[in-house]
Each structure stands twice: as C-alpha cells, then as structure tokens.
C-alpha cells in the first residue's frame, strides 16, 4: 500500500464528462514527511512514520522536538504509521511525500473519525423502525426498541444486544473512493462522495494496489 495524511476541507460538486453532477470532497493531502523508518531488527516490524500539519514549537514537548529535529523538519501535528508500504515507494528517513503518489481516476480508502452524535436511541443509532403507528392505542412507544429478549429462558439479555448509547466519534473507513481531480500545486485531492468527520478533521488516505 501507499498513503498520506490529509485534512478534510469541505464538499462541493463537479460535473463529469457524461454531464452527471458528482458530489465531491476536497482534501488537503500532504506534504507528509517520513519522520521514522521502522525495521525488523530494531523495532520487530516494518513501517514508516509520516507526519503532517503545522504545529507551534512551544506547543511541542522536548521529546517530540528532538524527534522532529532528527528528520530536520518543523514540528508536525499528526504522526501516523503506515505498514507494508509499497516497495516501489520505499521511502527513506526525511523524504517528503506529496499527492503525486496518487493518480487521477484510481480508487483510495479514506479513514477518519465520524462526527459525534451524543447519546442516541435505537432508531437513529441502528435504524430500528420503532412502532409504526401513532394511533391505535399507542401513546409513547414511537421510537422504542421493543423486546430485548425472552423471559424464563434465557432469563438474561444477550451480549451485544443493540440498544441506545453513544453514537459517532469513532474510526470509520470509506473504501473505494474515486479520485476525481488532483491539484498538485495546492496539495489538493478531490474524491467522489463523502468522507467521515467534520471539516478540518484529519484523515488517513490509503491506496491498496
């Protein structure tokens, strides 16, 4: 695989050659710096660590400052490890990766943290139907989950029963998003469809070949 760290900018729409109006997400992707190369001898596994995003020096711990100084780059906000990086893209310490590693038209996976929805009931959280009728004697069960199990046997609620609770704010991966456009001079990537999280949130872009 190969990949980058990016930032969600916002959504817009583009007309394709067939005249279809395609909803798109604009992502600021890279430039990312290789701040560490891990190998089997010293770390027990192979991976490269990429860093992205501006960060003030006085907001960075001394330990991290030393880590960035090693790669001779300014402090970065986000660091992420990428394993099984493509042999062709085998990167060395201090290398800079840009959107050039992607090609227009190919498909990538985008990982982000979804928007937090707070404590939600089963209708919103799991798509339960609730009680269909507002009348026929029904008065306050419109969005209730219904039965959560049988009585004397098993006399307990099964683990993993879908109930109300905290929704969102979790890692979500969108797979096979087509790259509509690449604007290298501004490090911009435009992908088809939506990606998780609010505007300004950080994303991991992965391309599996």
């Amino acid at each position: 695989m190969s990949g980058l760290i990016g930032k969600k900018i916002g959504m817009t729409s583009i007309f394709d050659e067939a005249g279809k109006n395609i909803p798109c997400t604009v992502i600021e992707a890279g430039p990312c710096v290789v701040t560490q190369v891990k190998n089997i001898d010293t770390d027990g596994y192979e991976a490269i660590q990429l860093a992205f995003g501006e960060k003030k020096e006085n907001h960075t711990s001394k330990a991290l400052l030393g880590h960035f100084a090693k790669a001779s780059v300014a402090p970065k906000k986000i660091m992420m490890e990428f394993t099984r990086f493509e042999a062709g893209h085998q990167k060395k310490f201090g290398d800079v990766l840009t959107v050039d590693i992607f090609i227009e038209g190919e498909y990538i996976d985008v990982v982000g943290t979804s928007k937090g929805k707070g404590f939600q009931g089963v209708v919103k959280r799991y798509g339960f139907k609730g009680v269909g009728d507002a009348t026929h004697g029904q008065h306050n069960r419109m969005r209730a989950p219904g039965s959560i199990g049988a009585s004397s046997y098993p006399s307990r609620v099964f683990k993993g029963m879908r109930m109300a609770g905290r929704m969102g704010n979790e890692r979500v991966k969108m797979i096979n998003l087509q790259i509509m456009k690449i604007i290298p001079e501004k490090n911009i990537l435009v992908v088809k469809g939506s990606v998780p999280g609010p505007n300004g949130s950080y994303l991991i872009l992965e391309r599996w070949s």
Partner: protein
Amino acid sequence: MGKQELLQYVEDQIEIKDLPQFKAGDTITVQYKIREGSKERLQNFQGVVLQRVGGGPTETFTIRKISSNVGVERIFPISSPFIEKIIVNKRGAVRRARIFYLRGLRGKKARIKEQRF
C-alpha cells in the same frame, strides 16, 4: 491557506458559463440539451424564476411554469453542461428573494408586475 480559500480555489477551477443576470420574479427561457440515444436536441423551458440557491459553481435556480393547468417546477444547476442558453424575457418587480407565494396563486392573481426602469 485556510479551508475556505482552498475550497474556493477548487471551485474557481470549475467553469461557469456566461449567463445573463436574472433574479426571482424574472421570466426566463432556458434552452437545454436533451440526449436521446446518441442524438442531441434543444428544448426550451420558459417560466418564472422562484429562487436562486447557493453560490459559486454549485448554485441552482428554480423555474416554475403552468403546463396544461398543472404547475411544473424545474431546478437547474447553474454550471450544468446541458444549459445551452438563457434568455431573459421579462424583469419582474417582486419584493422577495424567494417567491414561493406564487405556488398558491392561479390565473390573474399569479401575475407579476413588470419592472419599470
């Protein structure tokens, strides 16, 4: 560069056709391409502009006409490649940016005063 500027930069690259200025209350004719199999032909849609929504290349506008006694509304994206031409037939004098009240009116009541210059 901030988020807004980057988004603006992407949207600036989308081509918008040179269309005449029009606003809610105007009567316009949209000539748009229709694809039938491999053939392309032009069709007209004439009516009153109800509203313009959004900005930049993602802006859309709604047109309403009465076709055989039934109200028909159509929404066009402003950067749609199917729009061939827009002709402004009449400038209407209305006080609102969104003239949805027109939907409830018929016949003589549904007339719009023409703008005097």
